[in-house]
């Protein structure tokens, strides 16, 4: 094929949407990890927990496996998603590593359906963990930011279609 297929005009919008969402995700990623996502009140003792703090807590309470899973799901995965999407967007239009990018996008897309598991877990905790005076779990603004990061990444990866990896600038200019 001599000339690449023309780019549909909607893809420009998609690209912009994706960029906007990734930038928003990166911005939100900071408060999501700094602000407590929940407070655990155990026998009157109020303990605000950030995502990382929660992982630490789990690790110290003798649950390293669960701590690992949560760490993967709530810190590594969102970070990797944002990084991968950023990489895809930076490399957009280039002809390099197209195969790897396609694979990466597929993985991000695949993981996307699982990335809300953290928020789901938190909402279950907050609903179940109401033991009156003894213990209670309350979601904090951090959770909102965290969820927003995930929503951003999901829609970003959704709006970046696989075909856009192969859309290069050169044919457009000709």
């Amino acid at each position: 094929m001599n000339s690449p297929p023309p780019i549909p005009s909607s893809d420009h919008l998609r690209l912009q949407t994706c960029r906007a969402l990734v930038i928003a995700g990166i911005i939100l990623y900071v408060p999501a990890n700094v602000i407590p996502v929940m407070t655990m009140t155990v026998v009157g003792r109020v303990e605000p927990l950030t995502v990382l703090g929660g992982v630490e807590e789990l690790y110290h309470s003798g649950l390293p496996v669960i701590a690992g899973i949560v760490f993967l799901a709530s810190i590594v995965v969102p970070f990797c998603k944002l990084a991968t999407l950023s990489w895809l967007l930076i490399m957009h239009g280039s002809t390099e590593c197209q195969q790897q990018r396609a694979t990466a996008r597929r993985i991000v897309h695949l993981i996307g359906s699982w990335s809300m598991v953290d928020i789901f877990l938190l909402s279950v905790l907050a609903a179940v963990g109401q033991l009156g005076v003894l213990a209670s779990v309350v979601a904090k603004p951090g959770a909102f930011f965290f969820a927003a990061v995930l929503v951003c990444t999901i829609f970003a990866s959704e709006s970046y279609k696989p075909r856009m990896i192969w859309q290069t600038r050169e044919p457009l200019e000709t």
Partner: protein
Amino acid sequence: MTPDKSTDQTPIDHGEVVPHARRRISWAWVFPVLAAAATFWMFWSNWSSLGPEIEVVFDNAPGMEADKTPLIFRGMKAGEVTGMRLGKNLETVILTVRLEHFAAGLACEGTSFWIERPVLGLGELSGLSSLIQGNSLRARQGSGPPSRHFVGQDIPPLTPLDSPALVLNLQADQLPAIERGAPLFYRGIPVGTVEKLSFDATGNPTLRVVVEETYIDRVRTSSRFWPVPATSLKMGRGGLTLSILSLKALVLGGLKFDDFGEPGEPVHDEEKFILYADEKAARATGDLVKISFHDGRGIIAGETEIRYRGMPVGLVESVILNDDTQTVNSTARFEPEFAGLHNQGTVFTLIRPQISLAGISGLDTLLTGNYVDCQPGPAGETATEFAGLSSTDSGEEFAGSKVLGVPISLHAERIPHLGNGAQIFYRGLLAGRVIGMSLDAGNTPRLEAIVRPEFANLLTQNVRFWSVPPAEVQVGSGLMHLNLANLETLMEGAVAFDVFGPSEGKTRPASEFEIFATEAAARAISAPARITFENGQGLVAGSTQVRYLGLPVGLVEAVQPRNDQVEVVVRMNGGYETLLRAGSVFTIVRLKVSLDEGVTGLETALSGVYIECVPDKGGAPERKFAGVSSAEATFKENEQRGFEIIVTTPQTSITEGAPVSYRGLTVGKIGRKILASDGRLIGLRAIIDRPYAGLIRENTKFWNAGGVRISMGFLAFNVQSQWLDSLAGRGIAFATPNELGDRVRSGHEFELNQNPRREWLRWAPELPLNK
């Protein structure tokens, strides 16, 4: 297919859309803007809620944790400990606390910080929440210029919320038992607490008291403070009153204050007050009055009251001997509203109890202590120096010639505890009073008493006096009575008298009597009889009774050992001397539990042992008896009405008192065991009840009955065990053949078989009973 489709469509789309698409901006760019705004707002609001950072220095800071321990002010989280470090020389702990924005006001001088930890004290139970939430830092707001450095308090203040409303210093010569945290009451309402006990500059103990803000205006310059006893027991005519102020005061002590007289000005912080010894002292705030007495007996500084028409109006503050050692000077203070009572002409009389035939005057002093009566003269100038009188100055009214009554004297080895003025009763009527006590020449204590004239003709030689116990507990069968005499008897004791025995045969008048310890002792008027017992266990001189058919007829006067026996001196009540005859049987009845007879003498469990008397009908009067044991007595009793036979056996475990049965019916008892005439056999003397004597014939057969048989399978073992037998109540049984033999005489000997033959058990003769 696909390339075709795309080539079909692209020319149309391409030409039209591209230029537009290049300029179009996605609405999604709103998201980064929103995200940035939200993040910024979040951080900004977090930052703006932060107040200043302060440092608090503690000697030690148990339970503090950086980034976790909250600073709590009025129950709200007002900050957080963000850091901890040790001070120079490692002597202090410095806590860094980040205050919330709204609590920035706490960062000012005067704010006190302390560590709330659980306190389980006597009077306080605080910081319980710390038990589960961990220790926390607390603050109480001050009102000084802003500051960043604070020194924490080691002890939590008692009034944690506000700055102390009103601090008072109470001074006393000696502090009563009062602890930190003790309540301060104003007319029963706790209005403050004791915060600190210390010494002031002059070395006097000082109480630092904090009064709550709401009650500040209750404290006036005229207020008087005194400690309250946590419990008080008041005794009066109305009975006993035990009052406990409050549980807290019980443990920590308490203070009270009130205004007497004109209320004064409101007070300022750090005002000094005097803590009075008690309420009476606090009430007496008026002028100092000096009263001199010839005799200061019964005046107690700080206790003796001054009364006007029975109302306490003042208190004696001090009693000192005058310089000329002839009079006693006392100083007293009046309550301010009664200041008008001490004018020229006021007569002060020291009231002490007085006893006369008419009764006791000043009896109230027995309960309340002596007091000084105040009789203001006609209106005149207020005076402060008086010469006091004494109510007994006029002489010993009750003694000597003034007495309108018959004097008598009562003596005893040991006179009961009686007060002067104790009442003397005759059958419940007040007949006289005790007026004095003395020792006569022979060192016998003696009670002097007077008896009203109308009872004088009762005072003959056969009158018996006894002391009435103030309280008496009577235990009867199933019932318990508590008798309390009247209040006067309770205080002073009482004496009663009566005539016992035959009243005919007028005896001559007398004025000297013996007084007995109890009514029962007084009733036992007969000449003493002596009874000897093997064992005198349970006999109590003065209280063990002699009973006849269950009725008390006498009393044990003395119990003493004699010749390895116990000799009991007994006196009988009037009319029962006839029981003391030769042949009368005296037995000690004790509680006895046995399987044969069950429980006997159960009443002695409550009343104590007693001596049962079984009189002989026609004996001559006798004064010496040998008491018998209970088994012997039963035997004797049976002997009188029974028919005696002797059953011989080589060896037996049958005990005295075992039943003798005929076809299961008990018709007699084994009286006692003897060695049979030739000495080879044991003889059991069986007493058969008279109605059944006809059952015993020459050919009657006796055998061992009862006992314990343990059967195993088809083999029957007769287990013989003395212990088991005695437990099961072994006896003997007999049967008489159908062909009746001759009747036997008393004392006939029979042989005891170990087991009955079968035909014996089938014997069923027709017997002429009761013939």
